[in-house]
């Protein structure tokens, strides 16, 4: 009697945007466009690595919120790698988005153990 083999393939696409510099009203549209393109092709899981963001304003935050809303609608999620710069992390705390977004370490972006 031959063995029974049940094969399950797990494919989880996670797109990570590592952003360096200012994420403000002038730079946010480019990030939004990139994110929109991935959402349009079906990606629903995103990581925004903000560790090297030097400044984050409300227009930059709006991109994160828009991504979160749309990814959740597609049963996905958005996670953040927390900014190192105080000026950037301050606005995330003031908006209480530290309680809305799940934050992770940059080492956790790719699942460990492989």
């Amino acid at each position: 009697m031959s063995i029974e083999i049940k094969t399950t393939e797990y494919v989880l696409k996670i797109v990570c945007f590592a952003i360096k510099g200012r994420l403000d009203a002038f730079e946010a549209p480019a990030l939004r466009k990139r994110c929109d393109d991935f959402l349009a092709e079906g990606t629903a899981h995103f990581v925004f690595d903000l560790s090297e963001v030097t400044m984050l304003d409300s227009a930059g935050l709006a991109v994160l919120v828009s991504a979160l809303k749309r990814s959740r609608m597609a049963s996905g999620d958005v996670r953040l790698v927390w900014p190192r710069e105080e000026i950037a992390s301050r606005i995330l705390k003031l908006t209480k988005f530290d309680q809305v977004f799940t934050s992770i370490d940059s080492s956790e972006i790719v699942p460990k153990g492989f």
Partner: protein
Amino acid sequence: MKIAIVSTHPPGKGSLTEYGYHFIRFLRTKTENVSEIILLLDELPAGEKYEFGQEPGQVPVSVHVCWKFGAMNNALRIRQTVLETKPDVVLFNIQFASFAGGKVAATLGLLAPWLVRSSGFKTAVLLHNIMETVNLKQAGFGGNPVIETVIRLFGNMVTRFILQANLVAVTIPKYVEILEAKYHANNVLLAPHGSFEETNREMPSAVPAGPPNIMTFGKFGTYKKVEVLVEAFERLLPDHPTAKLVIAGTDNPNVKGYLDGIRDKYARVPNITFTGYVSEEQVPIIFGDSWVVVFPYTSTTGSSGVLHQAGGYGKPVVLPRLGDLEQLVIEEGYEGEFFEPESPESLAEAICRVIDHPERMMEMGSVNFMAATGLPITEVVDWYLIHFEQLLKK
């Protein structure tokens, strides 16, 4: 999610009608998150009524007229209506004088968020000003130091009641820090004002045709006073004889007759237009024709909707050197020319620094356009919805 909103709304002419109108307009588009909007609005003068159509793709709205500016029982009536309509979340769009001009009625009205939460409903407050930064005298309250001290004490007490809401949103970062430091609050968050306008508008490609058009917009007479602006305009007329000054808007409800007084007092100054009430349809025309938008404020009571509107139309702005406004301009990415409050000379010079330099005018307009359109109010509404979802999970 079934959301109730306590607010003013056109055709009402109370404070924050503009914000209420645009917030509700965009909330109605969020059909994926919101199943029903329950509007708890104030009583209108005889002959006027609220009108909300129902188009496909819009969240249905029900209107409950349940409070009256100046009444003592507003908090009780609002609570009763919330009990009857049973929303998932109640959002208050308010400032300290939303419910009345009188101190007692204003205070009693501001107990409404606490009463509603005490009745078991998730409650959020969008508080457009905080007592700590309001100049009471110039905002139409107070008058002598003893009364001001008493009002401040009541203000502290009322703030503590407001902070009993599940969430309190404010529009300026400094407000969050003040409330956290003074009241040890941990439920205060920053929710920027956002731009009222559609984001599909393009930045104007040139300065509007015709003579220089200097415009100010608002409800005047308390902390928005036009005397300094008119005197500054008078000073710049010899070098700009065709320039126009447009004073767009009405008296603040607490200072009826203010603009008529200005018209009489400065009858000698030519080229001034008083538009009176500006309807929603007229707003794009008023802003579109202007070269520069001036903020003749003597103090501020919160984030300025007019600043976001000016930015949305790609207009340069001239602002007084006052704490809130200057900070807002810097933190939200706007650019403006500044003047010393109460100095016509300083204001005239600031206006000339804009209107005499078309390239500078376009550059400032462009920066402000980017700042305003970077965060349209439709996205601010999403910020609230994400926080509400979080709140409902608890």
